[in-house]
Protein backbone atom coordinates (compact mmCIF):
# COMPACT_ATOMS: atom_id res chain seq x y z
CA UNK A 1 0.00 0.00 0.00
CA UNK A 2 1.14 3.55 -0.67
CA UNK A 3 2.11 5.99 2.05
CA UNK A 4 -0.65 7.57 4.13
CA UNK A 5 -0.38 11.13 5.41
CA UNK A 6 -2.58 13.65 7.20
CA UNK A 7 -3.05 16.82 5.14
CA UNK A 8 -5.52 19.60 4.43
CA UNK A 9 -7.71 19.54 1.34
CA UNK A 10 -5.69 22.38 -0.16
CA UNK A 11 -2.53 20.38 0.34
CA UNK A 12 -4.23 17.37 -1.28
CA UNK A 13 -4.97 19.54 -4.34
CA UNK A 14 -1.30 20.40 -4.72
CA UNK A 15 -0.06 16.88 -4.06
CA UNK A 16 -2.62 15.37 -6.40
CA UNK A 17 -1.49 17.71 -9.17
CA UNK A 18 2.17 16.83 -8.69
CA UNK A 19 1.24 13.13 -8.61
CA UNK A 20 -0.40 13.67 -12.01
CA UNK A 21 2.83 15.10 -13.41
CA UNK A 22 1.92 18.77 -13.22
CA UNK A 23 5.10 20.82 -12.89
CA UNK A 24 3.83 24.28 -13.76
CA UNK A 25 1.68 26.41 -11.51
CA UNK A 26 0.61 30.01 -12.05
CA UNK A 27 -1.37 31.67 -9.29
CA UNK A 28 -2.33 34.64 -7.20
CA UNK A 29 -3.01 34.72 -3.44
CA UNK A 30 -6.59 34.60 -2.22
CA UNK A 31 -8.09 33.06 0.92
CA UNK A 32 -9.01 30.23 1.40
CA UNK A 33 -6.73 28.66 -1.24
CA UNK A 34 -3.37 30.35 -0.64
CA UNK A 35 -1.85 27.16 0.80
CA UNK A 36 -1.93 25.74 -2.73
CA UNK A 37 0.37 28.34 -4.36
CA UNK A 38 2.50 28.38 -1.20
CA UNK A 39 3.06 24.63 -1.39
CA UNK A 40 3.73 24.77 -5.13
CA UNK A 41 6.26 27.59 -4.75
CA UNK A 42 8.20 25.38 -2.35
CA UNK A 43 7.87 21.99 -4.04
CA UNK A 44 7.88 22.61 -7.81
CA UNK A 45 11.44 23.98 -8.06
CA UNK A 46 12.64 20.78 -6.35
CA UNK A 47 11.31 18.66 -9.22
CA UNK A 48 12.43 20.94 -12.04
CA UNK A 49 9.08 22.67 -12.23
CA UNK A 50 8.09 26.31 -12.21
CA UNK A 51 5.92 28.45 -9.98
CA UNK A 52 5.09 31.97 -11.15
CA UNK A 53 3.12 34.41 -9.04
CA UNK A 54 0.98 36.45 -11.40
CA UNK A 55 -0.21 40.02 -10.93
CA UNK A 56 -3.89 38.98 -10.92
CA UNK A 57 -6.09 36.02 -11.71
CA UNK A 58 -6.34 37.40 -15.21
CA UNK A 59 -2.56 37.07 -15.38
CA UNK A 60 -2.79 33.55 -13.93
CA UNK A 61 -5.26 32.25 -16.49
CA UNK A 62 -3.24 33.63 -19.42
CA UNK A 63 -0.06 32.11 -18.08
CA UNK A 64 -2.05 28.88 -17.85
CA UNK A 65 -3.17 29.39 -21.45
CA UNK A 66 0.38 30.05 -22.68
CA UNK A 67 1.72 27.15 -20.64
CA UNK A 68 -1.06 24.86 -21.86
CA UNK A 69 -0.12 25.66 -25.44
CA UNK A 70 3.26 23.99 -24.84
CA UNK A 71 1.44 20.72 -24.14
CA UNK A 72 2.70 20.43 -20.56
CA UNK A 73 0.40 19.78 -17.63
CA UNK A 74 -0.50 23.18 -16.21
CA UNK A 75 -2.73 24.43 -13.42
CA UNK A 76 -3.91 27.34 -11.34
CA UNK A 77 -6.08 27.66 -8.28
CA UNK A 78 -8.17 30.49 -6.95
CA UNK A 79 -11.28 31.34 -4.99
CA UNK A 80 -14.52 32.86 -6.20
CA UNK A 81 -13.65 36.53 -6.94
CA UNK A 82 -10.53 35.32 -8.72
CA UNK A 83 -12.55 32.89 -10.79
CA UNK A 84 -14.60 35.77 -12.15
CA UNK A 85 -11.37 37.32 -13.40
CA UNK A 86 -10.44 34.02 -15.03
CA UNK A 87 -13.73 33.76 -16.87
CA UNK A 88 -12.46 35.40 -20.05
CA UNK A 89 -9.49 33.06 -20.23
CA UNK A 90 -11.63 29.98 -19.57
CA UNK A 91 -13.66 30.85 -22.63
CA UNK A 92 -10.48 31.05 -24.73
CA UNK A 93 -9.15 27.75 -23.33
CA UNK A 94 -12.41 26.11 -24.38
CA UNK A 95 -12.40 27.76 -27.81
CA UNK A 96 -8.78 26.86 -28.53
CA UNK A 97 -9.13 23.42 -26.89
CA UNK A 98 -6.18 23.83 -24.55
CA UNK A 99 -5.96 21.40 -21.60
CA UNK A 100 -5.64 23.01 -18.17
CA UNK A 101 -6.83 22.37 -14.63
CA UNK A 102 -8.44 25.19 -12.65
CA UNK A 103 -9.26 24.72 -8.97
CA UNK A 104 -11.88 26.88 -7.25
CA UNK A 105 -11.81 26.78 -3.45
CA UNK A 106 -15.15 28.51 -3.10
CA UNK A 107 -15.81 31.30 -0.63
CA UNK A 108 -19.17 32.85 0.04
CA UNK A 109 -20.22 35.34 -2.62
CA UNK A 110 -21.15 37.42 -4.49
CA UNK A 111 -18.80 40.40 -4.55
CA UNK A 112 -15.76 40.25 -2.30
CA UNK A 113 -17.47 37.46 -0.35
CA UNK A 114 -16.01 36.15 2.86
CA UNK A 115 -12.39 35.04 2.74
CA UNK A 116 -12.21 32.92 5.85
CA UNK A 117 -15.64 31.38 5.52
CA UNK A 118 -17.11 28.85 3.21
CA UNK A 119 -20.19 28.28 1.11
CA UNK A 120 -21.15 26.63 -2.16
CA UNK A 121 -22.11 29.78 -4.01
CA UNK A 122 -20.22 29.25 -7.29
CA UNK A 123 -22.24 26.31 -8.62
CA UNK A 124 -23.97 28.26 -11.37
CA UNK A 125 -20.75 29.99 -12.38
CA UNK A 126 -18.72 26.81 -12.76
CA UNK A 127 -21.38 24.63 -14.35
CA UNK A 128 -22.85 27.05 -16.87
CA UNK A 129 -19.55 28.21 -18.40
CA UNK A 130 -18.25 31.18 -16.47
CA UNK A 131 -17.06 33.06 -19.55
CA UNK A 132 -18.79 34.18 -22.72
CA UNK A 133 -19.87 32.36 -25.83
CA UNK A 134 -21.36 29.08 -24.64
CA UNK A 135 -18.91 26.33 -23.73
CA UNK A 136 -18.46 23.71 -21.05
CA UNK A 137 -15.69 22.70 -18.70
CA UNK A 138 -15.86 19.35 -16.94
CA UNK A 139 -16.43 20.15 -13.24
CA UNK A 140 -15.33 17.63 -10.58
CA UNK A 141 -16.64 18.04 -7.03
CA UNK A 142 -14.74 15.94 -4.48
CA UNK A 143 -16.09 15.49 -0.94
CA UNK A 144 -13.00 14.33 1.00
CA UNK A 145 -9.25 14.74 1.14
CA UNK A 146 -8.67 11.40 -0.60
CA UNK A 147 -11.15 12.22 -3.31
CA UNK A 148 -9.52 15.61 -3.87
CA UNK A 149 -6.16 13.85 -4.34
CA UNK A 150 -7.65 11.29 -6.72
CA UNK A 151 -9.82 13.67 -8.73
CA UNK A 152 -6.92 16.05 -9.28
CA UNK A 153 -5.24 13.21 -11.15
CA UNK A 154 -8.42 12.49 -13.08
CA UNK A 155 -8.78 16.19 -13.90
CA UNK A 156 -5.43 16.26 -15.71
CA UNK A 157 -6.31 13.10 -17.59
CA UNK A 158 -9.69 14.43 -18.71
CA UNK A 159 -8.19 17.80 -19.68
CA UNK A 160 -5.74 16.00 -21.97
CA UNK A 161 -8.30 13.50 -23.26
CA UNK A 162 -10.93 16.06 -24.22
CA UNK A 163 -8.56 19.01 -24.75
CA UNK A 164 -10.03 21.77 -22.65
CA UNK A 165 -10.26 23.32 -19.22
CA UNK A 166 -11.30 21.02 -16.37
CA UNK A 167 -12.38 22.43 -13.02
CA UNK A 168 -12.08 20.94 -9.56
CA UNK A 169 -14.35 22.68 -7.09
CA UNK A 170 -13.90 22.50 -3.32
CA UNK A 171 -14.69 25.03 -0.60
CA UNK A 172 -13.46 26.50 2.68
CA UNK A 173 -14.41 23.43 4.72
CA UNK A 174 -12.86 20.88 2.35
CA UNK A 175 -9.80 23.05 1.73
CA UNK A 176 -8.96 23.61 5.39
CA UNK A 177 -9.97 20.27 6.94
CA UNK A 178 -7.13 17.81 7.53
CA UNK A 179 -7.84 14.20 6.62
CA UNK A 180 -5.71 11.14 6.00
CA UNK A 181 -4.95 10.45 2.35
CA UNK A 182 -3.21 7.58 0.64
CA UNK A 183 -0.63 8.82 -1.87
CA UNK A 184 -1.65 6.46 -4.67
CA UNK A 185 -0.98 6.94 -8.35
CA UNK A 186 -3.99 6.42 -10.56
CA UNK A 187 -3.63 5.19 -14.12
CA UNK A 188 -6.47 6.12 -16.46
CA UNK A 189 -4.97 4.69 -19.62
CA UNK A 190 -3.22 6.02 -22.70
CA UNK A 191 -3.62 9.47 -24.21
CA UNK A 192 -2.99 10.70 -27.74
CA UNK A 193 0.20 12.61 -28.64
CA UNK A 194 -0.06 16.38 -28.41
CA UNK A 195 0.71 17.19 -32.00
CA UNK A 196 -0.90 20.57 -31.56
CA UNK A 197 1.62 21.80 -28.97
CA UNK A 198 3.72 24.88 -29.69
CA UNK A 199 7.41 24.01 -29.45
CA UNK A 200 9.12 25.99 -32.20
CA UNK A 201 9.01 24.21 -35.55
CA UNK A 202 12.53 22.74 -35.46
CA UNK A 203 11.30 20.23 -32.86
CA UNK A 204 8.75 18.96 -35.39
CA UNK A 205 10.99 18.66 -38.42
CA UNK A 206 10.12 22.13 -39.68
CA UNK A 207 6.33 21.80 -39.65
CA UNK A 208 4.80 24.74 -37.95
CA UNK A 209 1.80 24.77 -35.63
CA UNK A 210 -0.55 27.72 -35.33
CA UNK A 211 -3.44 28.45 -33.03
CA UNK A 212 -5.61 31.18 -34.42
CA UNK A 213 -9.19 32.20 -33.72
CA UNK A 214 -11.72 29.56 -34.68
CA UNK A 215 -13.23 31.66 -37.45
CA UNK A 216 -9.89 31.57 -39.31
CA UNK A 217 -9.13 27.86 -39.04
CA UNK A 218 -12.18 26.00 -40.15
CA UNK A 219 -14.08 25.88 -43.38
CA UNK A 220 -17.03 27.68 -41.91
CA UNK A 221 -17.50 28.59 -38.27
CA UNK A 222 -20.45 26.21 -37.96
CA UNK A 223 -18.15 23.24 -38.55
CA UNK A 224 -16.06 24.38 -35.62
CA UNK A 225 -19.14 24.57 -33.41
CA UNK A 226 -20.36 21.16 -34.57
CA UNK A 227 -17.04 19.67 -33.48
CA UNK A 228 -17.41 21.15 -29.99
CA UNK A 229 -21.07 20.16 -29.77
CA UNK A 230 -20.09 16.57 -30.60
CA UNK A 231 -17.29 16.66 -28.02
CA UNK A 232 -19.64 17.86 -25.29
CA UNK A 233 -22.17 15.18 -26.23
CA UNK A 234 -19.44 12.53 -25.95
CA UNK A 235 -18.44 13.84 -22.51
CA UNK A 236 -22.07 13.64 -21.39
CA UNK A 237 -22.22 10.03 -22.60
CA UNK A 238 -18.95 8.89 -21.08
CA UNK A 239 -17.97 10.94 -18.07
CA UNK A 240 -20.96 11.30 -15.75
CA UNK A 241 -19.90 10.34 -12.22
CA UNK A 242 -21.86 10.12 -8.99
CA UNK A 243 -22.09 8.17 -5.75
CA UNK A 244 -25.19 6.73 -4.13
CA UNK A 245 -25.56 5.91 -0.45
CA UNK A 246 -28.61 3.85 0.61
CA UNK A 247 -30.33 5.51 -2.32
CA UNK A 248 -31.89 2.41 -3.86
CA UNK A 249 -34.14 1.82 -0.91
CA UNK A 250 -35.32 5.20 0.34
CA UNK A 251 -38.47 7.28 0.36
CA UNK A 252 -36.64 10.59 0.47
CA UNK A 253 -33.62 11.15 -1.74
CA UNK A 254 -31.20 13.81 -0.51
CA UNK A 255 -29.10 15.35 -3.28
CA UNK A 256 -25.92 17.14 -2.22
CA UNK A 257 -22.34 17.60 -3.46
CA UNK A 258 -18.98 18.44 -1.87
CA UNK A 259 -18.92 19.39 1.81
CA UNK A 260 -22.73 19.41 2.00
CA UNK A 261 -22.73 15.79 0.88
CA UNK A 262 -20.55 14.89 3.87
CA UNK A 263 -23.08 16.56 6.14
CA UNK A 264 -25.98 14.95 4.32
CA UNK A 265 -24.41 11.52 4.67
CA UNK A 266 -24.28 12.04 8.43
CA UNK A 267 -27.92 13.06 8.29
CA UNK A 268 -28.82 9.89 6.36
CA UNK A 269 -27.28 7.74 9.11
CA UNK A 270 -28.93 9.81 11.80
CA UNK A 271 -32.31 9.59 10.04
CA UNK A 272 -32.03 5.86 9.42
CA UNK A 273 -31.41 5.35 13.17
CA UNK A 274 -34.70 7.15 13.75
CA UNK A 275 -36.48 4.94 11.21
CA UNK A 276 -36.55 7.45 8.33
CA UNK A 277 -35.79 5.86 4.98
CA UNK A 278 -33.27 8.40 3.72
CA UNK A 279 -30.79 7.99 0.88
CA UNK A 280 -28.07 10.18 -0.58
CA UNK A 281 -27.27 10.97 -4.19
CA UNK A 282 -23.97 12.77 -4.59
CA UNK A 283 -23.05 14.18 -8.01
CA UNK A 284 -19.26 13.97 -8.49
CA UNK A 285 -19.33 15.59 -11.92
CA UNK A 286 -21.35 18.80 -11.67
CA UNK A 287 -20.93 19.05 -15.43
CA UNK A 288 -21.76 16.71 -17.05
CA UNK A 289 -24.67 16.52 -14.61
CA UNK A 290 -26.09 13.06 -13.74
CA UNK A 291 -29.48 13.95 -15.18
CA UNK A 292 -30.78 10.43 -15.84
CA UNK A 293 -29.50 8.85 -12.64
CA UNK A 294 -31.08 11.59 -10.53
CA UNK A 295 -34.35 11.38 -12.42
CA UNK A 296 -34.45 7.63 -11.86
CA UNK A 297 -33.52 7.87 -8.15
CA UNK A 298 -36.05 10.64 -7.61
CA UNK A 299 -38.86 8.69 -9.25
CA UNK A 300 -38.08 5.64 -7.10
CA UNK A 301 -37.97 7.64 -3.87
CA UNK A 302 -40.94 9.83 -4.69
CA UNK A 303 -39.46 12.92 -2.96
CA UNK A 304 -36.22 14.89 -3.18
CA UNK A 305 -34.48 17.19 -0.72
CA UNK A 306 -31.56 19.22 -2.05
CA UNK A 307 -29.09 20.30 0.63
CA UNK A 308 -26.65 22.98 -0.50
CA UNK A 309 -24.89 25.79 1.30
CA UNK A 310 -26.04 28.46 -1.12
CA UNK A 311 -29.05 30.51 -2.16
CA UNK A 312 -30.28 27.56 -4.25
CA UNK A 313 -28.22 26.79 -7.33
CA UNK A 314 -27.75 23.00 -7.61
CA UNK A 315 -31.50 22.76 -7.07
CA UNK A 316 -32.07 24.25 -10.54
CA UNK A 317 -30.30 21.30 -12.20
CA UNK A 318 -32.08 18.80 -9.95
CA UNK A 319 -35.46 20.31 -10.85
CA UNK A 320 -34.55 20.26 -14.53
CA UNK A 321 -33.61 16.56 -14.22
CA UNK A 322 -36.71 15.54 -12.27
CA UNK A 323 -38.96 17.49 -14.65
CA UNK A 324 -41.73 18.00 -12.10
CA UNK A 325 -42.40 14.26 -11.70
CA UNK A 326 -41.83 14.36 -7.93
CA UNK A 327 -41.60 17.26 -5.46
CA UNK A 328 -38.14 18.80 -5.01
CA UNK A 329 -37.47 20.62 -1.72
CA UNK A 330 -34.50 22.76 -0.84
CA UNK A 331 -32.57 23.35 2.34
CA UNK A 332 -30.22 26.20 1.47
CA UNK A 333 -27.92 28.48 3.43
CA UNK A 334 -30.80 29.54 5.68
CA UNK A 335 -30.29 26.17 7.36
CA UNK A 336 -26.98 27.36 8.88
CA UNK A 337 -26.67 27.14 12.66
CA UNK A 338 -25.78 30.81 13.07
CA UNK A 339 -26.01 33.98 11.04
CA UNK A 340 -22.27 34.71 11.13
CA UNK A 341 -19.82 33.65 8.45
CA UNK A 342 -18.89 30.55 10.45
CA UNK A 343 -22.37 29.10 10.21
CA UNK A 344 -22.83 25.66 8.67
CA UNK A 345 -25.76 23.35 8.04
CA UNK A 346 -25.58 20.62 10.68
CA UNK A 347 -26.96 17.10 10.08
CA UNK A 348 -29.47 17.78 12.89
CA UNK A 349 -30.87 20.66 10.85
CA UNK A 350 -31.27 18.36 7.86
CA UNK A 351 -33.20 15.90 10.05
CA UNK A 352 -35.41 18.77 11.25
CA UNK A 353 -36.18 19.53 7.62
CA UNK A 354 -36.95 15.86 6.95
CA UNK A 355 -39.34 15.80 9.91
CA UNK A 356 -41.12 18.87 8.56
CA UNK A 357 -41.49 17.18 5.17
CA UNK A 358 -42.74 13.98 6.81
CA UNK A 359 -45.52 15.95 8.47
CA UNK A 360 -46.80 17.26 5.15
Amino acid at each position, binding site marked *: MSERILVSGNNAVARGAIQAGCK*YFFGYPITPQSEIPEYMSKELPKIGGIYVQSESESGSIYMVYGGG*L*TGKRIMTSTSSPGLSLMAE*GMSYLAE*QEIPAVIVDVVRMGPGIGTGGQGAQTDYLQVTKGCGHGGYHAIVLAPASGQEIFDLMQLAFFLADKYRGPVMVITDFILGQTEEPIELRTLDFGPLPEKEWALT*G*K*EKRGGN*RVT*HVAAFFTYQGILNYHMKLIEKYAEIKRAEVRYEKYLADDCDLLIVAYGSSARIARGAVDMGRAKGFKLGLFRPITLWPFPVEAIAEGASKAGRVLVVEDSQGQLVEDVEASVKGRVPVHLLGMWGRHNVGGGGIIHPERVIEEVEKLNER
Partner: protein
Amino acid sequence: MKDKSSDVKKVTGRPGLRLQSLGMYCPGCHYGIITRVICEVIEELGVAGKAIGLAGVGCSFGGAPMTIDIDWTSCPHGRAPAMATAIKRIYPDAMVLTVQGDGDLGAIGLGCFMNALVRGENLTTVFLNNAVYGTTGGQMAPTTLLGMKTTTTPLGRDIKTNGYPLHVPELAATMRGVAYAARCTVHTPANFQRAKKSLKTAIQKQMDGIGYGIVEFVSACPPGWGLKPLECLDYISERMLEEYPLGEFKNLDKTD
Protein backbone atom coordinates in the same frame (compact mmCIF):
# COMPACT_ATOMS: atom_id res chain seq x y z
CA MET B 1 19.85 34.56 -79.27
CA LYS B 2 22.19 34.28 -76.31
CA ASP B 3 20.76 32.94 -73.07
CA LYS B 4 21.29 35.67 -70.51
CA SER B 5 19.69 33.95 -67.51
CA SER B 6 23.08 33.17 -65.99
CA ASP B 7 23.80 36.91 -65.89
CA VAL B 8 20.61 37.69 -63.98
CA LYS B 9 21.29 38.25 -60.32
CA LYS B 10 18.46 38.26 -57.83
CA VAL B 11 18.78 41.38 -55.72
CA THR B 12 15.55 41.14 -53.79
CA GLY B 13 12.49 38.96 -53.29
CA ARG B 14 9.99 37.72 -50.83
CA PRO B 15 11.69 36.64 -47.58
CA GLY B 16 11.73 32.88 -47.16
CA LEU B 17 9.57 33.08 -44.06
CA ARG B 18 6.97 35.28 -45.74
CA LEU B 19 3.99 33.07 -46.54
CA GLN B 20 1.88 33.75 -49.55
CA SER B 21 -1.39 34.82 -47.98
CA LEU B 22 -4.48 36.77 -48.79
CA GLY B 23 -4.12 40.53 -48.65
CA MET B 24 -4.82 41.25 -45.01
CA TYR B 25 -4.03 44.92 -44.81
CA CYS B 26 -5.49 48.10 -46.32
CA PRO B 27 -3.53 49.81 -49.10
CA GLY B 28 -0.85 51.97 -47.50
CA CYS B 29 -0.83 50.08 -44.21
CA HIS B 30 2.70 49.66 -42.87
CA TYR B 31 2.03 46.32 -41.20
CA GLY B 32 3.06 44.50 -44.39
CA ILE B 33 6.43 46.25 -44.37
CA ILE B 34 6.87 45.50 -40.65
CA THR B 35 6.08 41.85 -41.43
CA ARG B 36 9.02 41.93 -43.81
CA VAL B 37 11.26 43.39 -41.11
CA ILE B 38 10.27 40.59 -38.74
CA CYS B 39 10.81 37.88 -41.39
CA GLU B 40 14.22 39.18 -42.43
CA VAL B 41 15.44 39.59 -38.85
CA ILE B 42 14.35 36.10 -37.81
CA GLU B 43 15.98 34.63 -40.91
CA GLU B 44 19.21 36.54 -40.46
CA LEU B 45 19.45 35.52 -36.81
CA GLY B 46 18.69 31.91 -37.76
CA VAL B 47 16.05 31.51 -35.04
CA ALA B 48 12.98 30.55 -37.10
CA GLY B 49 13.03 26.99 -35.77
CA LYS B 50 12.97 28.20 -32.18
CA ALA B 51 10.51 31.02 -32.74
CA ILE B 52 7.08 31.15 -31.13
CA GLY B 53 5.02 34.21 -32.00
CA LEU B 54 2.10 35.60 -30.03
CA ALA B 55 -0.19 37.98 -31.88
CA GLY B 56 -2.37 40.45 -30.02
CA VAL B 57 -5.90 41.33 -31.03
CA GLY B 58 -5.89 43.96 -33.74
CA CYS B 59 -5.01 44.11 -37.40
CA SER B 60 -1.72 42.38 -36.53
CA PHE B 61 -3.61 39.41 -35.10
CA GLY B 62 -5.15 38.34 -38.35
CA GLY B 63 -1.98 38.96 -40.26
CA ALA B 64 1.02 37.73 -38.38
CA PRO B 65 0.19 34.01 -37.98
CA MET B 66 -0.87 33.79 -41.62
CA THR B 67 2.11 35.63 -43.04
CA ILE B 68 5.19 34.49 -41.11
CA ASP B 69 6.26 30.86 -41.25
CA ILE B 70 6.89 30.12 -37.57
CA ASP B 71 4.82 28.69 -34.69
CA TRP B 72 2.11 31.13 -33.66
CA THR B 73 -0.76 31.62 -31.35
CA SER B 74 -3.24 34.43 -31.38
CA CYS B 75 -3.98 35.90 -27.95
CA PRO B 76 -6.94 37.49 -26.22
CA HIS B 77 -6.86 41.29 -26.29
CA GLY B 78 -3.86 42.55 -24.32
CA ARG B 79 -2.81 39.21 -22.83
CA ALA B 80 0.14 38.19 -24.97
CA PRO B 81 2.83 39.04 -22.37
CA ALA B 82 1.30 36.71 -19.76
CA MET B 83 1.01 33.87 -22.27
CA ALA B 84 4.53 34.54 -23.52
CA THR B 85 5.79 34.45 -19.93
CA ALA B 86 4.67 30.87 -19.45
CA ILE B 87 5.95 29.71 -22.84
CA LYS B 88 9.39 31.25 -22.30
CA ARG B 89 9.66 29.90 -18.74
CA ILE B 90 8.84 26.42 -20.01
CA TYR B 91 11.08 26.69 -23.10
CA PRO B 92 13.96 28.98 -22.07
CA ASP B 93 15.73 28.33 -25.41
CA ALA B 94 12.79 29.43 -27.57
CA MET B 95 12.64 32.84 -29.22
CA VAL B 96 9.36 34.22 -27.93
CA LEU B 97 7.95 37.28 -29.67
CA THR B 98 4.76 39.22 -29.01
CA VAL B 99 3.29 41.50 -31.70
CA GLN B 100 0.81 43.96 -30.23
CA GLY B 101 -1.03 47.11 -31.27
CA ASP B 102 -1.23 50.31 -29.27
CA GLY B 103 -4.74 49.53 -28.04
CA ASP B 104 -3.76 45.95 -27.27
CA LEU B 105 -0.58 46.72 -25.36
CA GLY B 106 -1.11 50.35 -24.38
CA ALA B 107 -4.71 50.25 -23.12
CA ILE B 108 -6.33 46.91 -22.27
CA GLY B 109 -2.99 45.15 -21.87
CA LEU B 110 -0.83 47.83 -20.24
CA GLY B 111 -1.00 46.15 -16.83
CA CYS B 112 -0.20 42.75 -18.31
CA PHE B 113 2.77 44.21 -20.22
CA MET B 114 4.15 46.23 -17.30
CA ASN B 115 3.92 43.23 -15.00
CA ALA B 116 5.94 41.15 -17.44
CA LEU B 117 8.61 43.87 -17.18
CA VAL B 118 8.29 43.92 -13.38
CA ARG B 119 8.94 40.17 -13.34
CA GLY B 120 11.98 40.70 -15.54
CA GLU B 121 10.81 38.34 -18.28
CA ASN B 122 13.17 37.61 -21.12
CA LEU B 123 10.97 38.33 -24.14
CA THR B 124 10.74 40.49 -27.24
CA THR B 125 7.80 42.74 -28.11
CA VAL B 126 6.99 44.43 -31.40
CA PHE B 127 4.73 47.33 -30.48
CA LEU B 128 2.67 48.74 -33.36
CA ASN B 129 1.83 52.40 -32.85
CA ASN B 130 -0.63 53.63 -35.47
CA ALA B 131 -2.25 56.08 -33.04
CA VAL B 132 -5.70 54.48 -33.46
CA TYR B 133 -7.67 51.30 -33.00
CA GLY B 134 -7.44 50.28 -36.63
CA THR B 135 -9.45 47.06 -36.51
CA THR B 136 -12.54 48.45 -34.85
CA GLY B 137 -12.73 51.47 -37.14
CA GLY B 138 -10.31 54.17 -36.08
CA GLN B 139 -11.25 54.98 -32.49
CA MET B 140 -8.93 56.79 -30.09
CA ALA B 141 -5.95 54.80 -28.81
CA PRO B 142 -3.71 55.76 -25.86
CA THR B 143 -1.20 56.91 -28.49
CA THR B 144 -3.60 59.19 -30.40
CA LEU B 145 -1.99 62.61 -30.85
CA LEU B 146 -3.42 65.63 -29.07
CA GLY B 147 -5.83 67.34 -31.44
CA MET B 148 -6.04 64.25 -33.68
CA LYS B 149 -9.54 63.42 -34.88
CA THR B 150 -10.69 59.83 -34.50
CA THR B 151 -14.15 58.29 -34.52
CA THR B 152 -14.38 58.70 -30.72
CA THR B 153 -12.61 62.08 -30.58
CA PRO B 154 -14.65 63.82 -33.28
CA LEU B 155 -13.38 67.25 -32.19
CA GLY B 156 -9.81 66.04 -31.75
CA ARG B 157 -8.16 64.46 -28.68
CA ASP B 158 -8.06 66.91 -25.83
CA ILE B 159 -6.17 66.60 -22.58
CA LYS B 160 -9.09 67.37 -20.31
CA THR B 161 -11.27 64.49 -21.42
CA ASN B 162 -8.80 62.09 -23.03
CA GLY B 163 -5.49 62.56 -21.24
CA TYR B 164 -2.00 62.34 -22.72
CA PRO B 165 -0.32 60.27 -25.42
CA LEU B 166 1.47 57.20 -24.09
CA HIS B 167 5.19 56.68 -24.70
CA VAL B 168 5.78 52.97 -24.35
CA PRO B 169 9.51 52.42 -24.99
CA GLU B 170 10.40 55.42 -22.82
CA LEU B 171 8.25 53.94 -20.05
CA ALA B 172 9.70 50.46 -20.53
CA ALA B 173 13.23 51.87 -20.40
CA THR B 174 12.68 52.86 -16.76
CA MET B 175 12.22 49.21 -15.78
CA ARG B 176 15.27 47.33 -14.51
CA GLY B 177 14.55 44.11 -16.37
CA VAL B 178 14.43 45.82 -19.77
CA ALA B 179 17.59 45.42 -21.83
CA TYR B 180 16.50 47.22 -24.97
CA ALA B 181 13.88 49.84 -25.81
CA ALA B 182 13.68 51.72 -29.09
CA ARG B 183 11.31 53.43 -31.49
CA CYS B 184 11.55 53.22 -35.25
CA THR B 185 9.54 53.60 -38.45
CA VAL B 186 9.51 51.97 -41.85
CA HIS B 187 8.33 55.01 -43.79
CA THR B 188 11.65 55.53 -45.63
CA PRO B 189 14.23 52.98 -46.86
CA ALA B 190 16.84 54.29 -44.40
CA ASN B 191 14.41 53.92 -41.53
CA PHE B 192 13.54 50.41 -42.70
CA GLN B 193 17.21 49.46 -42.29
CA ARG B 194 17.39 51.08 -38.83
CA ALA B 195 14.23 49.28 -37.79
CA LYS B 196 15.77 45.96 -38.80
CA LYS B 197 18.83 46.69 -36.73
CA SER B 198 16.70 47.59 -33.70
CA LEU B 199 14.59 44.47 -33.84
CA LYS B 200 17.67 42.34 -34.39
CA THR B 201 19.30 43.84 -31.31
CA ALA B 202 16.17 43.29 -29.24
CA ILE B 203 15.88 39.62 -30.23
CA GLN B 204 19.59 39.08 -29.70
CA LYS B 205 19.19 40.39 -26.12
CA GLN B 206 16.58 37.71 -25.54
CA MET B 207 18.68 34.95 -27.08
CA ASP B 208 21.66 36.04 -24.97
CA GLY B 209 19.47 35.99 -21.86
CA ILE B 210 20.10 39.68 -21.13
CA GLY B 211 16.51 40.82 -20.78
CA TYR B 212 13.31 42.20 -22.27
CA GLY B 213 13.49 44.04 -25.58
CA ILE B 214 10.75 46.25 -26.94
CA VAL B 215 10.69 47.94 -30.33
CA GLU B 216 7.95 50.39 -31.20
CA PHE B 217 7.07 50.83 -34.85
CA VAL B 218 5.30 54.08 -35.70
CA SER B 219 3.01 52.88 -38.45
CA ALA B 220 0.55 54.38 -40.91
CA CYS B 221 -3.17 53.62 -40.86
CA PRO B 222 -4.64 55.47 -43.87
CA PRO B 223 -8.32 54.76 -43.12
CA GLY B 224 -7.84 55.49 -39.42
CA TRP B 225 -6.11 58.76 -40.16
CA GLY B 226 -8.41 59.76 -43.02
CA LEU B 227 -5.38 60.27 -45.26
CA LYS B 228 -4.09 58.84 -48.52
CA PRO B 229 -1.12 56.44 -48.21
CA LEU B 230 1.38 59.04 -49.45
CA GLU B 231 -0.03 61.74 -47.18
CA CYS B 232 0.54 59.34 -44.27
CA LEU B 233 4.29 59.45 -44.89
CA ASP B 234 4.32 63.22 -44.39
CA TYR B 235 2.04 62.87 -41.38
CA ILE B 236 4.55 60.50 -39.81
CA SER B 237 7.50 62.84 -40.48
CA GLU B 238 5.69 66.02 -39.47
CA ARG B 239 3.32 65.01 -36.70
CA MET B 240 3.93 61.52 -35.33
CA LEU B 241 7.69 61.83 -34.92
CA GLU B 242 7.27 65.14 -33.16
CA GLU B 243 5.36 63.38 -30.35
CA TYR B 244 7.19 60.06 -30.73
CA PRO B 245 10.89 60.69 -31.33
CA LEU B 246 12.92 57.92 -32.96
CA GLY B 247 15.87 56.39 -31.21
CA GLU B 248 17.16 53.94 -28.64
CA PHE B 249 16.09 54.68 -25.09
CA LYS B 250 17.96 51.79 -23.56
CA ASN B 251 20.59 49.34 -24.74
CA LEU B 252 22.22 47.29 -22.01
CA ASP B 253 24.69 44.43 -22.26
CA LYS B 254 23.70 43.23 -18.83
CA THR B 255 20.71 43.62 -16.52
CA ASP B 256 21.14 43.03 -12.81
